[in-house]
């Protein structure tokens, strides 16, 4: 028979859904800034679409605009992120999120299962090993964005930070590739949520998930 079970706490759901538009705004305004000096390459391919594409997207010649949005939204993005981390620490939720000894082997098993190379998924609690690793990695990446962003923003006043990041250009490099990492995370995250289905997705909104439990 079925039973409704609590899955995600209210605070976690709010942090998650507030983060979504804030991160989107940070990435979009970051792209407006990147346009002014779009220098990075991936496998030799310049990560700089033709100017026509930038213009079609209304993202050309908007460096000043992009900076003003970036330096406005950054506060909300950072505060939400810091509160989330504090909350997971104080509530004990971190125990569900931080990878443990089993997570790494489990993550491999989950990946093999998802790629249809393994028949059974490993037994899991709230989050499987792959989830624990990604949800912790994304927080570390967020911290990396914060720190590399500060190094770009004030490379002289925070020169120790810039030095740690390999200088001003090193910090830019780190900041850019972390953002590419978020986009990659987003793509996999959406694919997994779609695959897992509605019951799992709506739990991130309602907090409850319907489970099949043994008739007692």
């Amino acid at each position: 028979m079925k039973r409704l079970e609590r899955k995600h706490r209210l605070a976690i759901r709010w942090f998650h859904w507030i983060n979504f538009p804030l991160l989107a705004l940070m990435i979009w305004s970051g792209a407006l800034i990147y346009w002014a000096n779009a220098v990075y390459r991936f496998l030799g391919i310049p990560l700089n679409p033709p100017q026509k594409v930038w213009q079609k997207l209304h993202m050309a010649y908007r460096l000043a605009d992009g900076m003003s949005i970036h330096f406005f939204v950054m506060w909300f993005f950072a505060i939400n992120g810091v509160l989330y981390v504090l909350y997971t620490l104080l509530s004990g939720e971190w125990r569900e999120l931080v990878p443990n000894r089993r997570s790494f082997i489990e993550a491999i098993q989950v990946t093999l299962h998802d790629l249809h190379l393994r028949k059974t998924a490993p037994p899991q609690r709230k989050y499987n090993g792959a989830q624990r690793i990604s949800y912790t990695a994304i927080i570390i990446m967020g911290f990396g964005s914060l720190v590399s962003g500060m190094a770009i923003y004030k490379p002289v006043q925070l020169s120790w930070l810039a030095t740690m990041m390999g200088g001003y250009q090193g910090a830019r490099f780190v900041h850019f590739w972390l953002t590419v990492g978020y986009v990659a995370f987003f793509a996999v995250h959406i694919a997994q949520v779609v695959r897992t289905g509605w019951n799992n997705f709506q739990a991130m909104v309602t907090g409850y998930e319907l489970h099949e439990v043994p008739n007692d």
Partner: protein
Amino acid sequence: MTDEPVVPEVVETVDGEALAAARAAAIAENDRNEAAALRRATRRSFLTMGVTAAVGAGAWALLRSRAPLQGLPAPFRRALDANDKLAMAYFSPTRLNREYPPAKITRPRVNGGLGISANNDPAAWRLTIQGVAGGARVLTLDEIKAFPRRTMITEFRCIEGWSTINQWTGTRLSDVVHAFPPDHPTRYVAMETPDRGYYVGLDMDSVLHPQTLLAYELNGAPLTWQHGAPLRLAIPVKYGVKNIKRVGVIRYTDVRPADFWAEQGYDWYLGL
């Protein structure tokens, strides 16, 4: 939702079939109730989410549509100004740009021609300092060069993102300020090209920073006109746009001076 459902025990009796049916019915009812509870929770939560999203989107649209202040919707300009206040409070003249060995020097880049021209006569150039105790002063390049000569190799960071490493030689701006001090303590300094084709506003702390030079040489050679001959500002505690070429006027002021790029929507302070 968390109440234990009442499920009758199946006991081996003559009424076994009836009991099994009753049990199945109870399970079905439980499942219906749980599903209904979830539907209620779903409606409630998605409604909350929708309303929150609409309020958020509305607030954003409102912020973006506010009357512009110096090229930006006012709330965004105010946020930049607030960030600047914080940065100015944190600023310390003891925090320096890293200085590089000569081997690290890269090719300088010419990225702007505002206020400069190939037709300018270097001999006709003078530097006017306004707001000085005892009245404005007019200086020649030789008078600037009479101050102690300083050389530094620092990173020149453009607001667009690129950076170069240049060797600047010139006079510490603080030496000039101390020789020709303002008639009263001021918070700001305005700098303009002789034709005011380009102008920047600076805070006094950054002006007095030990790595702020009035430079007359770049990478060991006198400045070319493209790099702001005969005298330009080299201020590595700021983005490149504040490194005004061909400085003609320096003015002490209490009012935050106009700044060419700040009027186009950029941050005014641009401190690094």
